[in-house]
Structures are given as C-alpha cells and as structure tokens.
C-alpha cells in the first residue's frame, strides 16, 4: 500500500513536469494536472479489472492518491499565483498587432502551419486583421481581431437589445418538472389546461413543453412508440 502510494506520487510529479516541459499545445482544453490525472486514471482503473490477481485495493489507493493530489494542487494554485505560473505557465501572445512573435512561437513549440491552421479554424486567413492571438494555459488559441474586422454588435447598430427570455422545460418526456413550473410562475392546473387546448389528454402525452416567463410556449407531442 505504501509502495503504491509513493509510486503514484512520484509518477504524478514526473508526468506533470514532463508535460509542462512539452508545452501547451499538448493539452487541448484540459489543465495540466487534469490531463495527467486523466492519462493515469484510465490505465490504473483498467489494470485490476483485467488482472484479477492484482488486489483492487492497489488500484483504489492509486486512484484516490491522484484524486487527492489533483485537489491539493488546484487548491494551492488558487492560493499562490506564482505556483500557478510555474506549473501551468501564462498566456502567450503568438501574434500582436498583426506581427507574429516568433520567439514565443518557438518557445511553445508551435509551428507556423499550426498557427495558420488554428487561425483558419477561426475563419481568419489574413494575419493583418489579427490584433492578438493568445495561446491560453490550456492550449487553446484565442484570436482577437482588429476593431475594423470585428463583427458588428447589436449595440453598435443601435438595435434595442431586449433580454432573451429563458425557456423553462415544464414537461420532459411526459414528466412534469414542478421546480421549473414554480420558477416560470405557473401552476399544474394551467399546464394541464394548455395540454388540453393542444388536443392532449394530459402531460403524459407531451414529449416537450417549454414556456418563457412572458408566456411563449414551445410544444411537441409524444409520438407513438414503434
């Protein structure tokens, strides 16, 4: 048990350091420690399952240790900003005011092809319209365009921007969601009446029924099962 625990701590630390050195492009939307845990847990869980000669306790101790390490690390990172920078790095500007920062590109082991591919993915083909391209700590590339190339917003157009009413799901597959009904300011009698008006016997005949606070209803009847 102690050996498993110590080995898990060592592997976690080494993997964390190695992946940190590999650079952000390896991550892909997961934080570094989350990625390390995901990589390890999948394997740890499968070993005692495949080999019944290994006590389940060995797998459980290792998984529990990883879980604790991840929680401790995320807690420490929240408290100590410098630790966060040391472990996860900081966002890097790969493009600034249309100019590629070649040093940062090289430092993050990002090739020019990968950069242009990422930009194309965000419908950007002309580097001159990129104000900033920021490589975030989780490996995603955020692109901010120069003002003249940004899409026009409703505010800029002077269009009155009303609030978007939230449609509450009141019936889901024949089941009344009473909590949503309360939030929407309606009651069950009203709902049953609405169903009846739409030719249904009751909520059990409804597949989906949504309603906004202003009263806009979406309705879909339940189809007969084949």
């Amino acid at each position: 048990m102690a050996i498993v625990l110590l080995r898990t701590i060592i592997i976690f630390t080494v993997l964390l350091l190695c992946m940190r050195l590999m650079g952000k492009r390896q991550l892909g939307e997961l934080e570094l420690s989350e990625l390390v845990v995901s990589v390890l847990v999948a394997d740890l869980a499968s070993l005692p399952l495949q080999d019944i000669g290994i006590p389940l306790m060995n797998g459980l101790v290792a998984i529990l240790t990883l879980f604790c390490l991840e929680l401790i690390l995320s807690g420490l990172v929240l408290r100590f900003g410098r630790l966060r920078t040391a472990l996860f790095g900081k966002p890097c500007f790969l493009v600034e005011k249309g100019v590629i920062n070649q040093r940062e590109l090289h430092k993050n082991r990002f090739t020019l092809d990968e950069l242009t591919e990422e930009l194309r993915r965000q419908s950007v083909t002309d580097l001159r319209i990129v104000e900033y391209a920021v490589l975030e700590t989780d490996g995603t590339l955020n692109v901010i365009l120069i003002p003249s190339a940004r899409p026009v917003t409703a505010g800029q157009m002077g269009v009155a921007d009303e609030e978007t009413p939230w449609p509450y799901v009141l019936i889901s597959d024949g089941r009344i969601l009473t909590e949503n009904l309360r939030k929407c300011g309606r009651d069950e009698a009203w709902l049953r009446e609405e169903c009846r008006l739409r030719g249904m016997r009751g909520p059990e005949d409804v597949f989906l029924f949504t309603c906004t606070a202003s009263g806009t209803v979406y309705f879909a009847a339940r189809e007969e099962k084949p």
Partner: protein
Amino acid sequence: MKKAAVAGALLLGMLVLSFWNIRYLDRFTDELTAGVELSRARCREGDLSGARRVLGEAKELWSSARGYTHIFIRHAEVDAAADAFCELFSALESENGEGAEGAYERLLYHIRCIDEMEHVTWEAVF
C-alpha cells in the same frame, strides 16, 4: 481551499494507514515465521507429529488472515505461500523429515517475500 485541506487530510490518512499496514504485516509475518521455525526445530529433533501440530497452528493463523491477505497482498504471492504450506504438510505427512527441509525453506522464503513486499526501500519504490 477547503477541498484541498480535506484531500490533504485524506492523503495523510492513507499515508498513516499504509505505514500501519507495514507494521501489521511485519507482526503477522513474524508470528508466521516463528511458528514455522518452531515446527522446523521439532522436525529436526525427529518429532514429526509435534512439527505437524505447530505447523497446523501457523497454517491456522495464515488462514484466519485470509480477508486481509487477499485484499492487500498480490494474489500470486498469497497462492505461492499457500502452496508452500501444502507442500510442507505433505512432506511431514509422508514422514519424510529430510525432504521437509527444502519445503520449510520455500515456505519461509515466500513469507519473507510477503513481508519485504511492503517495505519502503529504494529498490521497491523504483
């Protein structure tokens, strides 16, 4: 930070538990070894029935810890030790005192392996 503190406490708890496990395993294997050694001494004196009786007690101790051994020790090690017990019993049953000597060695070796398996050493960790 609260979650991190709970996780830290849990990790510390596991660490304490694992060291308690080492001590428990030490005591358990020491008792087993003492029983087997005593049985060997009887066998060397030619008291085979006495050797069988003492070994039976050691075997009883081993069997009573079945729940523990199967949860914490690799099953291959547990099976090897159980096989060594059976082998030794059959050697003693056949009144073959000299043949039992090798079986005693094998059983003691397996018990030692189980004991050392949990010892925190550089070799074991790496």
